[in-house]
């Protein structure tokens, strides 16, 4: 066989093999494309989770549980089933999230429940409107939030109190407090959002030469610039919870909701105070 003939023969064999490979690859294409689509969604969720962790958890909670009296929960059945009807949004849930994150909220739509940070209620996050995030990041963030849909629990919008609310009288006698349930309340009521995880409010833990809240409470009401009425550490803490504007720690703004007197029972308040006093 001449070299030319051999090359023609081998060439034909190779074309057939290549064609076979292409057909095999092509038969798998639909499955592969579907897998890639899922994988790309998964990567968007991963990226979104990280963005949520750096940008959103301070107000909306580490696990999207929200901060009662401040920011709405996102990991919430109500958010996924009722919210669009409530605001009259005609697009998809994901579009709603993207639009809200991108442009923020000038005024809260539910000021009595979630007044939001300050003014604006929620800042705009898109770099188009002066925020820090790109469009693709906002899409990833929305993908992460949407991933809560299947498992979101039903959170009560107005928690029913187990007893009468504690009110705003700081001189009342509170029941015996339990630090352990106080710690749980600090998380479920969202206190940690501003006082532990971010520095929106004064940090509870000891930091920068300052002792923890337990020790600070004992000395604060004796300071000269103190403007409240407390005479004991317990009264000072109760005052800070139910009437936060009585005294503002220098360097912080009056953003803490003033309605805890109505949403906490006396036992809740006592537990919280007991817990805070343990943080030295």
């Amino acid at each position, binding site marked *: 066989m001449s070299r030319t003939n051999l090359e023609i023969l081998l*060439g034909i064999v190779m074309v057939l093999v290549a064609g076979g490979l*292409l057909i095999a690859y092509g038969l798998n294409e639909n499955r592969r494309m579907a897998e890639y689509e899922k994988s*790309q969604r998964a990567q968007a969720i991963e990226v979104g989770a990280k963005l949520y962790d750096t940008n959103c958890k301070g107000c909306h909670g580490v696990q999207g549980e929200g901060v009662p009296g401040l920011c709405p929960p996102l990991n919430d059945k109500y958010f996924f089933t009722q919210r669009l009807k409530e605001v009259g949004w005609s697009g998809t849930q994901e579009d709603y999230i993207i639009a809200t994150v991108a442009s923020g909220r000038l005024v809260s739509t539910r000021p009595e429940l979630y007044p939001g940070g300050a003014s604006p209620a929620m800042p705009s996050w898109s770099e188009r409107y002066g925020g820090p995030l790109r469009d693709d990041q906002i899409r990833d963030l929305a993908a992460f939030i949407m991933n809560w849909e299947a498992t979101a629990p039903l959170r009560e919008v107005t928690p029913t109190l187990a007893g009468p609310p504690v009110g705003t009288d700081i001189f009342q006698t509170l029941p015996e407090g339990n630090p352990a349930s106080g710690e749980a309340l600090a998380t479920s009521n969202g206190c940690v959002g501003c006082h532990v995880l971010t520095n929106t409010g004064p940090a509870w833990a000891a930091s920068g030469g300052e002792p923890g809240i337990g020790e600070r409470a004992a000395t604060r009401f004796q300071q000269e610039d103190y403007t409240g009425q407390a005479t004991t550490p317990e009264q000072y803490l109760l005052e800070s919870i139910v009437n936060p504007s009585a005294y503002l720690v220098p360097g912080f703004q009056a953003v803490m909701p003033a309605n805890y007197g109505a949403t906490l029972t006396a036992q809740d308040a006592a537990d919280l105070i007991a817990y805070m006093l343990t943080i030295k």
Partner: protein
Amino acid sequence: MLKSLNFNDLRQKAVRAIDNRVRIITAGLGLDELRAVMRGDPPTEKPNPRYRVHTTSFLFHIRPRYYEKGSTIFTHTFRLGFFTSFFFFVELITGLILMIYYTPSPEAAYQSILELESNVFFGKLLRDMHRLGAEAMVIFTALHMLRTYLTGSYKKERSFTWFTGVILLGITLGLSFSGYLLPWDQLAYWAVTIGTSMAEAAPLLGQQLNLLLRGAPDIGAGGLLRFYLAHVVLLPLGAILVISIHYYKVSREHGISLPARFEEGNVPPEVKKNAKSRVDFIPDLLTHEVFLTTLGLLALLVAIISFGYSAPLEHHANPQQTPLDTKAPWYFWWLQGMLKLGDKTLMGIILPTIIVLLLIAVPYLDRNPHRSLFKRPIAVSLGLLSVMTLVVLSYMGLPVYGIETPAATRIIQDIAPEEGQGPLYEIPFDQLQPGVYTVSETPPDELCPTIDFGCPKLTEVFLEFNNRVIEAATNPNLSEEQRLPNPEAVMVIEDWQQDLRKVTLRIAWDDPRTNQRTSYEKLVFMHRDHIRE
């Protein structure tokens, strides 16, 4: 009237008519001649109609009528030049199709690549072919140049061909580098940021040059559009022009050089005569080219489909986040290595310019008339020395050389790198058992004893983390930066969302340089459906 209809007559007429058509299509080859070509028979007519094709057909007029037999020996050329142009055509064709799906803007570019991979039939294959073809084209260009140098084929009348070759090397690198930016991922963004920042070091015009390339002080929409247009218009047009000149010189003017032994070696005259005998384009060279083309295509497909080559795609470009180890494309590692040796202007601009000028000047500097390897000891040893220098410089260009990262950062980034593969990412999702795993001198042999199938891969990765931290804590021979005295290190896995787990790697230690407790932490989210390849 029926009687006058002679069947044979009719048949002859029909054959003649068909023959005529075929000659028009094949630019001069009749039916009989085509048959002879396919069978490997000698030409059927005189003058040889197989040569006529080269004057009547546009596509064939730039092809050689014949090569000398000696120059077609495989071990003389290794078909390197052929494969370089083969990959150029692969790039041209796949590139034209990819252009349909690509949008050159920072907002849309990355998304268009994602859609190409998840929503276009054969889309990923096309991208893989384009990427692999580009790498192969750079490799074959370099090898082709090395071969030409070693066989002394750049001498005398072929000096100008060598010059066009050097230009083509530059265009090939330019094409490859400009294509690097287009996916607009982290890999692209930072490689090109480093690359264009070198232009800044150019004396006098640096600032302007940098601005011209990037379209703004930082790479953005303007820079991407410029790189895109350079990649799809300017450089391909330049390449087509210079390849045409380069190829014309070889195919029509000088032919491929004969191996030196036939020209200057001590060989019998009949061997010399045989080496100079003709190998015609039709059918021998043409068949060979088609054969090589199918071989090349099959090799590309096998590399991608059977061996799983996959064009890399990192996260979306993020100007705010500089990756820990920024790397130029591999063919510029030598330049990165040089930059570590000295000043940016000297090492990044002046020396490379001198190198290019020296390459162009090779045929004029080398006055030795001989072409045989053994008669050019200086040229050959200089060439090999250059190749070795290039390899060493490339090694020095890698992040492992000369850059010391603090131990905690290094350990955590090695286990869970920002981009690409890493031990952590190889753990199957179901083995990521939520828990707090603390580094200690006596780590457990098995992390999840309560689970039937265990978690061997997680255990393996945790042990690597554990052992590296303990090594950094206990080895007294390490430098201060590499030591982790008194470490508290932990790997925390939490169930975060449906099909999503959060892995936290944290190391805290007493920093001997500041005498303070310091810590380094990294969060990684891992989703069940994420395909890592």
